[in-house]
């Protein structure tokens, strides 16, 4: 029945767009229609893949891929651009949820383990990927003309990008699976900290090696970045106080009020050039740990964010570039496999050094495979710093991200299932 409905919905959209009822391209109207359509198809596709014991996100991504420019052409570039505010809003809600999940008690208990895993992934992890790709770079025809030092910088930046993870995937799978337990706590904690560490490392590396790049492109300022992060956290604490006051005084229509809070964070971040994710994480963290509204806040955000998650991942699916994947798949596959191996090894080193539980040792590494937003941002920066080789590297990295984005949620869901943490939060 669900498959029939999915076919029916797709047929309806194809007919509507191809029968030519409308002769003028009204992007806003089309975007609104597609927004609703993606929620519906994502819901059906998500329910279908759940039967295969896969995470709903895979279904949302799949719905997006089918609607995307490579298949049905229902979601095109103009609609993707028009709906970009959904991405920002959804990411903010994901960060609010992530912040709310970070409980002080859990952090205190796992601080040592989380620190070790982050340390292992960010130093030996980066070095391992870089060491693997540097010899390859020396022989690749597309990268001829660069000095060995420049190629080493390129390999180092590739290593940093490979270490980056996707908080959105982690939070979305975690919420959907209603996971609770040491694996979830460790994966979430590491993902959040690693996200910040990787941004800092990338900026620091680019700032330090700027003279070697000689691209003329302006390197990002570390001080500026640190200031932005500081102010973002401060902004998060302020919005957190607003959130607590709202939850205290408004007892009805909390869904709508929280939607308003999310939109406020997105808009404030834009106006003051701050990081919306850091604001939202700090806001969620404050409400969850320093008020009595933590669980109400979390429940409300979970309710509001489902349609946003659906569209966010469906749009991500529609944006996956399969043409690029087809062109560069051997190198992309190498990057994916080496990343998997590095994540496996370094996570286990970290878990052992941090003295965490056996199930964390066995399954936590699977939670660090998903890759999305931050990595894509880095790729653009890399292209800016290495204009000649950037395009080539961008193709490989984006193709690898496509694969990671597909296998990441599946592996994380598997980790929760195997460690017996799926559905525990609900109980």
């Amino acid at each position, binding site marked *: 029945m669900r498959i029939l*409905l999915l076919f029916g919905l797709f047929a309806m959209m194809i007919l*509507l767009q191809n029968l030519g009822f409308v002769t003028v391209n009204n992007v806003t109207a089309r975007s*609104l*229609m597609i*927004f*609703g359509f993606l*929620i519906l198809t994502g819901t059906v596709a998500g329910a279908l893949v759940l039967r295969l014991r896969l995470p709903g996100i895979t279904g949302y991504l799949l719905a997006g891929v089918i609607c995307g420019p490579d298949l049905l052409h229902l979601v095109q570039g103009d609609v993707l651009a028009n709906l970009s505010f959904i991405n920002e809003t959804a990411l903010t809600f994901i960060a609010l949820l992530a912040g709310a999940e970070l409980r002080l008690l859990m952090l205190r208990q796992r601080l040592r383990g989380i620190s070790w895993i982050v340390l292992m992934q960010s130093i030996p992890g980066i070095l391992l990927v870089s060491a693997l790709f540097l010899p390859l770079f020396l022989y690749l025809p597309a990268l001829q003309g660069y000095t060995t030092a420049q190629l080493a910088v390129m390999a180092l930046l590739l290593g940093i990008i490979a270490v980056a993870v996707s908080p959105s995937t982690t939070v979305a799978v975690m919420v959907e699976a209603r996971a609770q337990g040491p694996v979830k706590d460790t994966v979430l904690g590491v993902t959040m900290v690693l996200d910040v560490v990787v941004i800092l490392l990338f900026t620091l590396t680019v700032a330090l090696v700027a003279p070697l790049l000689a691209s003329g492109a302006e390197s990002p300022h570390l001080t500026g970045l640190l200031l932005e992060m500081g102010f973002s956290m401060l902004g998060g604490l302020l919005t957190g106080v607003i959130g607590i006051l709202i939850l205290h005084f408004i007892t009805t229509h909390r869904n709508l009020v929280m939607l*308003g809070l999310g939109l406020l964070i997105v808009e404030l971040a834009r106006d003051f050039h701050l990081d919306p994710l850091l604001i939202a994480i700090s806001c969620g963290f404050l409400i969850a740990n320093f008020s009595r509204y933590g669980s109400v806040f979390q429940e409300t955000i979970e309710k509001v964010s489902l349609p946003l998650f659906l569209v966010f991942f469906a749009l991500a699916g529609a944006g996956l570039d399969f043409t690029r994947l087809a062109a560069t798949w051997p190198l992309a596959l190498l990057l994916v496999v080496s990343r998997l191996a590095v994540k496996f090894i370094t996570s286990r080193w970290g878990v052992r050094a941090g003295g965490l539980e056996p199930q964390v040792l066995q399954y936590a590494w699977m939670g660090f495979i998903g890759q999305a937003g931050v990595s894509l941002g880095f790729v653009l920066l890399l292209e800016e710093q290495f204009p000649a080789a950037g395009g080539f590297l961008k193709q490989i990295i984006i193709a690898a991200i496509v694969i990671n984005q597909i296998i990441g949620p599946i592996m994380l869901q598997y980790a929760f299932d195997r460690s017996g943490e799926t559905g525990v939060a609900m109980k």
Partner: protein
Amino acid sequence: MKLTYFLILIGLISLAGSTRLFLRLRSLPSWRLFFTTSTLFLLSGILLGPHGINLISRTMLLELKPVTVLLMGWVGIVLGLQLRWHHLRRIPLRIAAGSQIQAVVSLLIILGGFLLLWRMWPVLTVPFDSPRLFAMLAVIGLSTAPEVIQISGLALIRNQHSFRTALFFANLGRITAIFAIGILYALYRPSTGLLPLPAVHWIMLTLVLGAALGLVATFFCQHSKDEAGFLSSMTGMIIFAAGLAYYLHLSPLLLTLLMGIVTANSTPRAIRLFEVLSRYDQAVFLLLLILAGALLDIPVPGLVPLLLIYLVLRLLGKYAGNRLANVLLPQHHRSSTRFLLPQGALTLALAINQLQIYADTTAAAVFQILLLGSLCFSFLSLLLLGGWRR
């Protein structure tokens, strides 16, 4: 002010209005009709808009089109979900027929009156597409705000039967108005950007799409397991239906109304859907009122005579329609014209919608007349229903 901040601000005003402020102020007897007819929120919109403290520009307001379309979609489905055959068949035939007679007579008097005056003084409406202007005013003029009857009813109408008749007249009248405006949209298609199809085809398309969406909504209603999934899929349905209407220049109210009717009559779980959606009903109506107020423009002098004519014709139309409809009803069931005069958020939702679909001077004129007319009828109702005295 940026659009998002403005939306958050008016959203908060609407929520406060629908939860605390509205309920508290409603209990003050002498002012309650003023708040019931929601004039306060319309005036708030005017105050916040370009002709008040200018928090937002008119161009930015027009960018809110997707939001208003969504709000209308919400209103449409909530109305549609109330039209369950199980309930409808309990309405006495005389009252159902009476409500339609009342609607048709009002429509004929407003439309006929305008056409007659136009024949006599063609200069009256030179810059406008006159037939469309009159038809829109006549159709949207049909709607009445049932909230006024509900709130003032028990105190003012000593007869329970009479109270129920007035409520039926108002409720069925606004459904008739939504259907009638759907037909008008099919008759007067926007001149550019659409396939030139006969009106019947557009009407058929609306009906088919409404029914199909209703069936899809029924599926989601029946198969959503948890509250979050249920809310999410229903939000998706409303966004999709409203977006579809926007894309095809159809009436979002009619499309979602049809969707709601089909859903309400296909699954018992539609009751749950109605309960969930109607929680936000009042806030959505208030948001529409504030937006309508903010969209008000200073009326051009040529509109003033049209506004006055509209007020007189609607008054006459409602009076004559009610008198004729009452002929069918026993003495103690008869409703009073004064309850059928106030216009609320639905009237303005229809007015905003036609403004967005046609986006021309005629549509702007219709909007201004209806908005100012709505304000005038609110004050008139206060006088007629004795709100000032009590």
